[in-house]
């Protein structure tokens, strides 16, 4: 197996898609990952990529910024192809997130597993024996539209079918921080209201890791009223009014700003707080988060300091590498999923590129990396596919 990456900043969507795809395509490409800015006509762009790749499945999502081995870029398209006759790929799509997110997630992963050549895919359950890492033979990549349905339910549907122990990473699609329309890519289509799943068996060991690097502030409170993933009251008022007090009226309803200002839940034995990001605001001023907020839970406003976020990106790379028992330099490929909120805090392309370089250094300088910044990262937590916001999530494929 080997990985190739194509990147284009051409103005025309069809030309950009074709340019990036032709740079990445090889004679034995088995799957193409596409991440593209919403400045493009994505129907035309994805159709062009699909045309170049022919029968090879094309998956991915719209992005806030694109990641290449050279760093981060805005307003571009990147195509990463996994190549080799020994690579087995299955792809599925679940539609109608708005109607039933759980069923869509379940359908997507079901169809992806069915699409594999292999008869079965074994999960990597928590094993204590020495060779458990060697059993990691497949990874799952998910792409979902965050502006339709409920992300938590999508992942519940995936988890219900797949069970625990898989290296499942992915991204909730982004746009250029406008929060208007986000798309997932499936073969020749750019689709809304859907989730796409890819299961890949690269005949190499795989693993993943993630870190965010956000620090707790002195601003704390309790989730006095919460239901599912909706926070209704904190410090005696709505979260909207509380954020308005801290950051200003306009910021409390600005989705781009809220993406940069998560709050955290403290977890025993965990290295970092578990983050919650507001992805929607109700008319009552309640904050709809990417994952559950237990009522009575202590909450802490989190602050992202650039140096700590950059350091955490490197740690994510190390965590991904060590989770698979890989030494430095034993990684062939890293697929990177970072957050548009981190991108907003960095506030410049050079610092965002530094994040990419930090991950690459952690994997080994010869690792091929690609990926994107978008609205919500998927990475395993406790063995299950989980919403990990404001995070750098890294999927790695070893050289052996």
């Amino acid at each position, binding site marked *: 197996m080997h990985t190739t990456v194509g990147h284009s900043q051409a103005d025309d969507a069809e030309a950009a898609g074709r340019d990036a795809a032709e740079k990445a395509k090889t004679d034995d490409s088995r799957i193409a990952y596409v991440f593209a800015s919403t400045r493009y006509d994505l129907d035309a762009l994805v159709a062009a990529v699909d045309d170049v790749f022919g029968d090879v499945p094309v998956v991915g999502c719209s992005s806030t910024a694109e990641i290449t081995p050279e760093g981060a870029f805005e307003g571009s398209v990147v195509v990463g192809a996994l190549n080799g006759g020994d690579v087995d790929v299955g792809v599925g799509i679940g539609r109608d997130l708005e109607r039933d997110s759980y069923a869509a997630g379940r359908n997507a992963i079901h169809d992806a597993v069915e699409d594999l050549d292999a008869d079965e895919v074994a999960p990597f359950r928590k094993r204590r024996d020495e060779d458990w890492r060697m059993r990691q033979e497949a990874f799952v990549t998910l792409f979902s539209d965050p502006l339709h349905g409920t992300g938590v339910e999508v992942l519940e549907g995936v988890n219900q079918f797949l069970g625990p122990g898989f290296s499942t990473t992915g991204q909730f699609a982004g746009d250029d921080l406008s929060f208007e329309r986000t798309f997932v890519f499936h073969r020749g289509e750019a689709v809304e209201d859907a989730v796409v799943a890819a299961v890949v068996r690269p005949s190499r060991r795989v693993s993943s890791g993630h870190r965010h690097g956000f620090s707790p502030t*002195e601003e704390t409170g309790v989730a006095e009223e919460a239901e599912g993933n909706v926070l209704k009251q904190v410090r005696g008022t709505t979260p909207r009014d509380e954020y308005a007090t801290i950051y200003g009226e306009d910021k409390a309803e600005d989705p781009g700003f809220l993406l940069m200002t998560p709050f955290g839940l403290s977890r025993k034995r965990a290295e970092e707080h578990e983050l919650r990001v507001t992805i929607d605001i109700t008319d009552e001023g309640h904050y709809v988060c990417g994952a559950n907020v237990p009522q009575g839970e202590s909450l802490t406003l989190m602050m992202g300091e650039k140096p700590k976020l950059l350091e955490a990106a490197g740690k994510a790379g190390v965590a991904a590498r060590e989770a698979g028992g890989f030494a430095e330099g034993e990684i062939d490929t890293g697929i990177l999923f970072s957050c548009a909120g981190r991108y907003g805090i960095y506030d410049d392309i050079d610092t965002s590129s530094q994040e990419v370089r930090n991950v690459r250094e952690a994997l080994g300088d010869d690792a091929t990396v690609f990926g994107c910044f978008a609205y919500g990262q998927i990475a395993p937590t406790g063995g299950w596919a989980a919403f990990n916001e404001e995070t750098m999530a890294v999927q790695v494929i070893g050289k052996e």
Partner: protein
Amino acid sequence: MVEYRDLLQVIINKERQTTGEDWTANVVDEIDGLEVDADGQITDLSGDPLSVLEQMLDRIEKLTGPVGLSLVGRAITQEFGRDLDIDLPGKLQDRL
């Protein structure tokens, strides 16, 4: 009339309240012309105070990006309102 010293003190107070004493001390240590005591009170402001304020904002922006600047802008607005009769750095004026 609001003075630069007042603005700097409000920013320091807000940073100490939100991000903590150590973080704020780390920010202030890097700024020429500004000294504070262990309680975060300004003890010395020397040189061009507008330059000191600009250094403070640059340092906050360098560490925390637009979030840190919004925190500062909100604190200033809550304390003094939006119309301050004093020259302000553009990155602060934009957030009032």
